[in-house]
């Protein structure tokens, strides 16, 4: 069974290895240059209290525009590869056999359907996980100098990588999470193929389904995997960090800026002493735009608090492990479903 699976998967495997080699060369060469620049900047041995911020700013400003392109390209590739794997490896795995009728040949050899599927899923799933893992490793290594520079407090100008590794646009392209995504994408593709039984519609469904998960997950699920850290501070209406917005409906919104390097900000609200969100209604003192002082005095009398909910940068690896484990469990559940479907429902 292993031989047949490999023989059927050979062409795709060769494509994947070629693409990996090409990317490894591109990012290997530029990555060595990047590491060299980082080393030359002196950031590695800087004193946290004195010059790290300045050195980090100098380092990031030295990077040419092509590094920005490479960084963005790498991020896109790491995000795209699990989706492509699900579409081109997962969806056709069983659907093509059903469509072309070859399942009737395969399922009448002396190998049970369950084992037939298990070997196929194992070979393709492991190859997918290895591909995604290697890509992520290359990209994480390549971007490490930029990520380190962006973590340093006081480095003010970040042309790139400012968001931090927990940012939804960055998180899924680093660490071990892509391994989980790849496993899930393969299983999703196979399940779509088993259910739809036609290759091209299964591929389209896989793409749509995987994209939906990748959008919905960081918005609705990931923030709650670990309960967010919260900070409550007093709002000082005279501070420079405060922005006032007078809304068209007569209400007032306070925007208090907040920054912690590498943290993922989930919500930033102004609350009243009784714990409700401050909407700024009935603020007559603020109705006259020319008397700004009256307005800030009134705001100060409201004893407003700023409630910040966030995930600190230190939780990056905890999130990575949780997410990888969850997606691998989801993949296993889908694989089990596929096994159940092909043994229960005859496909003839």
């Amino acid at each position, binding site marked *: 069974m292993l031989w047949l699976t490999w023989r059927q998967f050979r062409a795709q495997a060769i494509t994947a290895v070629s693409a990996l080699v090409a990317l490894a060369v591109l990012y290997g060469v530029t990555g060595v240059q990047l590491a060299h620049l980082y080393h030359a900047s002196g950031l590695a041995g800087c004193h946290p209290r004195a010059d790290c911020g300045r050195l980090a700013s100098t380092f990031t400003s030295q990077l040419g525009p092509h590094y920005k392109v490479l960084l963005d390209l790498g991020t896109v590739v790491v995000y795209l590869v699990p989706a492509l794997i699900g579409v081109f490896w997962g969806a056709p795995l069983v659907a093509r056999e059903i469509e072309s009728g070859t399942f009737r040949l395969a*399922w009448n050899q002396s*190998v049970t359907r369950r084992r037939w599927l298990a070997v196929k899923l194992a070979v393709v799933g492991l190859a997918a996980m290895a591909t995604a893992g290697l890509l992520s490793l290359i990209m994480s290594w390549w971007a490490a100098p930029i990520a380190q520079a962006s973590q340093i407090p006081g480095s003010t100008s970040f042309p790139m990588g400012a968001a931090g590794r927990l940012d939804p646009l960055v998180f899924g392209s680093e660490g071990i999470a892509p391994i989980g995504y790849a496993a899930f994408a393969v299983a999703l593709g196979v399940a779509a193929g088993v259910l739809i039984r036609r290759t091209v519609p299964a591929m389209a469904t896989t793409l749509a389904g995987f994209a939906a998960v990748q959008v919905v997950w960081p918005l609705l699920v990931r923030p709650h995997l670990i309960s967010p850290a919260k900070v409550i501070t007093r709002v000082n209406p005279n501070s420079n960090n405060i922005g006032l917005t007078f809304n068209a409906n007569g209400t007032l919104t306070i925007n208090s800026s907040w920054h912690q390097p590498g943290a993922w900000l989930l919500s930033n609200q102004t609350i009243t002493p009784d714990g409700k969100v401050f909407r700024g209604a009935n603020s007559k003192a603020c109705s006259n735009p020319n008397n700004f002082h009256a307005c800030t005095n009134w705001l100060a009398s409201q004893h407003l608090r700023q409630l910040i909910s966030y995930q600190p940068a230190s939780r990056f690896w905890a999130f990575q492990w949780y997410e990888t484990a969850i997606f691998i469990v989801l993949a296993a559940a889908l694989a089990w479903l596929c096994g159940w479907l092909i043994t229960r429902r*005859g496909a003839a």
Partner: protein
Amino acid sequence: MTAGSAAPEGRPPGTPPAAAPGELPRRTPPALDARGLGKRYGRRWALADCTLTIPAGHVVGLVGPNGAGKTTLLNLATGMLEPTTGTVEVLGGAPASGADQLAKVGYVAQDTPVYAGLTVAEHLRLGAELNPGWDDELARGRIERLGLDQKLKAAKLSGGQRAQLALTLAIAKRPELLILDEPIARLDPLARREFLQLLMEATAEQELTVLMSSHLIADLERTCDYLIVLVAGRVVLAGQVDDLLASHHLLTGPRRDPATLPADQQVITASHVGRQSSLLVRTDKPVHDPAWTVANVDIEDLVLAYLSRAASA
């Protein structure tokens, strides 16, 4: 459907003597044993209430018009389909229930599927990798005799060659039961004869039961010693060819109402032309009535009679 059921009386050939007291009785299980088997697609029954026992050791022809349920029955027997009603056992086990069961049954589906991207040699490798009982010598010998280029991809083979390749895979796994869905339809006359010859050889040298569907009655006549006629999802006739031929007679004589025949004579078809009646009857007793001219029937007469009876019913 009990009229067409064909449970053999007494011990089938090859059955060991009755077990000693205290031992579990050991019998050769029938090649196929269906009880109330049915398969429904939506509101249409592709196969309905099929009760059928096929003893091992025969070359069984499954005949019926298109859409009669032949492929459905074969797909149920190989576990490619789950029955809607009833049960089916093949060689004493549930179809496709495990690797051992799969090893015992060879199946060539109607469209003789092969992997388009794999060469002939790779198909033989596939057979060797996936079947513990693989007979490589047999497979290679057959491919050589067919003159198939082993380096050729299956996509480049003709329909007949693809069928031969699929058959080779099914035979070389050395099954106890070989199930073939319309195997001859795609073969040219020479390949057809070669294939039927090979089947005869295979059944002679190993304990092989063959269950093949066909609508070509002439081909079945030469090879099959057991016959099943399937019409509109129901078994209308099943039994050993010799028994069937011995128990059916064509009676011709003066015009007569079939209802006046002796009780043991079952009329299958009757036609009345002018003053003459022509009846095909089934009976286990000899026909003594001197008014009749009694003639033997051949398989084709028999099959056509049952098909036309089912069509007019």
